[in-house]
């Protein structure tokens, strides 16, 4: 202890207090304050930036979800539209088939009726013509067969012969 006290130099103590006090004041003013402020500002900036990034991420997620939803909707809509179109198409085809069938049947029936009536008319015509022809032929044959005397006699005889047989 005595050695320590002997070693103690008042002058050095005085200079140390003076210089260190001065240094403390100068550093306080010109170094530590701006350094700590700058570091604080930077840290706050980093915190803010991180929060902003987090927000942006969330926003982004929302946007993505939204667009996903929209896309889904659009897809469903397209699907529905396609389905509808297909149905309409099928219906149209079916309808037109039906229509065509009905029309065809109608035409067929008409044709058949026409044919039938034509046929009837033709048959009637043929019948009348055949009758006329038969009458003509019969007239001609009769005229031929009864043109001569003997032939007329023969006929009478044949006929008489037949009656006999009966």
């Amino acid at each position, binding site marked *: 202890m005595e050695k320590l006290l002997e*070693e103690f*130099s008042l*002058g*050095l103590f005085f*200079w140390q207090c003076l210089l*260190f006090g001065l*240094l403390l004041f100068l*550093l306080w003013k010109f*170094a*530590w304050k701006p350094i700590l402020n700058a570091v604080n500002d930077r840290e706050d900036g980093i915190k803010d930036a991180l929060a902003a990034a987090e927000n942006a991420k969330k926003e982004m997620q929302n946007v993505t979800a939204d667009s996903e939803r929209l896309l889904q909707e659009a897809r469903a809509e397209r699907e529905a539209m396609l389905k509808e179109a297909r149905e309409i198409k099928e219906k149209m085809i079916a309808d037109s088939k039906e229509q065509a069938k009905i029309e065809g049947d109608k035409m067929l029936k008409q044709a058949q009726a026409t044919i039938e009536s034509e046929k009837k008319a033709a048959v009637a015509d043929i019948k009348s013509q055949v009758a006329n022809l038969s009458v003509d032929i019969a007239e001609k044959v009769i005229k031929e067969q009864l043109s001569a005397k003997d032939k007329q006699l023969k006929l009478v005889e044949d006929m008489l012969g037949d009656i006999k047989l009966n």
Partner: protein
Amino acid sequence: MLFSFYKNAVHLHRFLGTDRIRNMRTVFTKLLFAVLLVFSTSSFALETEVSDAPKKDLKTEIKEYIDHHLKDSHDFSLFSYTTDSGEHKYVGFPLPIILWDNGLKVFSSSKFHHGETVAEVDGNHYKLYHSKIYKTDASGTINYDENHHATNSKPIDFSITKSVVMIFITGLLMFLLFGGLAKSYAKNGGIPTGVGRFFEPIVLYIRDDIARPNIGEKKYKRYMPYLLSIFFFIWFLNIFGLTPLGVNVTGNIAITFALALLTFLFTNFTGTKDYWMHIFDPLGDTLPWYGKLFLYPILIPIELLGVVIKPFSLLIRLYANMQAGHIVLMSLIGLMFLFKSWLGSPLSFGLAFAISLIEVLVALLQAYIFTMLSALYFGFAAVEHDHAEAH
């Protein structure tokens, strides 16, 4: 024996001085240079004692040299050597001496001729004896008491000593360094440049791992400038003490006393009501008043003693650690001269080298401990309880 070794060192020094640039490229020379750094410290160490007592044995010489080194010096000598004709040459520069002896006396320390002559100023005679200035008669007689202590009167010494110069240089360095760091933030958009990149993490470490946990989020900002200042001040001075300049500033009791005094003053002037309650009413509501009447005459003096002992431990710890480090290092270097053998000298050199590496660590560690404990004491002072039960 010592001289021859010492001369060798000087020769080496000259050799290296002239041919250094050419040889610098080789690893060998770098090694040699490292060795030389140690040698130059030792040569510097020898300076005044050699002339005082050339007949002393080597051990005493080394002991005296170490003693001398540990003390503050009135001139800034880098190293000294002896010419072939036996004349002492000193390399360095004198510093101003400022004395208060019935009036201010200012003169250059060159008047003392490194303690060899008596300085005469305004009719008064002063002599340098064991790094202290004594008032003497014209022939420089020093009177001793029975314990071999000088009894001459001592003028109050406000000299700009080697330590003061180093404090000034360190302060200037810190101001330029951290002022520059502060400016680089503004210039570079909040990001440090250059050496600031090295020092900024340390500043942040002191803030986040020393100040915040010990003092608390609310009040730490108030103490930050002081904590940062003492940390870098002590660290830089410790490191300077390890350079071949060998200025043992933080191993000086006056310096550590001044630093610890500041911590003491800061602690007690910023002390909250709760802090003082801890000292004068340590038991709080846990004891009825009649119990306190018996206990407090013992407890309060103990608490008050604690207030003083805390910073006192700071001053002794730093002083003793730096002093001890220097003594061990110098002694190991001294051993090289004592051994003078191919085995012993390299061995003590290796040891000295290892110890200097440890000392680099100790330099940082002591600065850290001083700062850490200061922060801890500030934490006690800044304490605030929400309710009295916490006492």
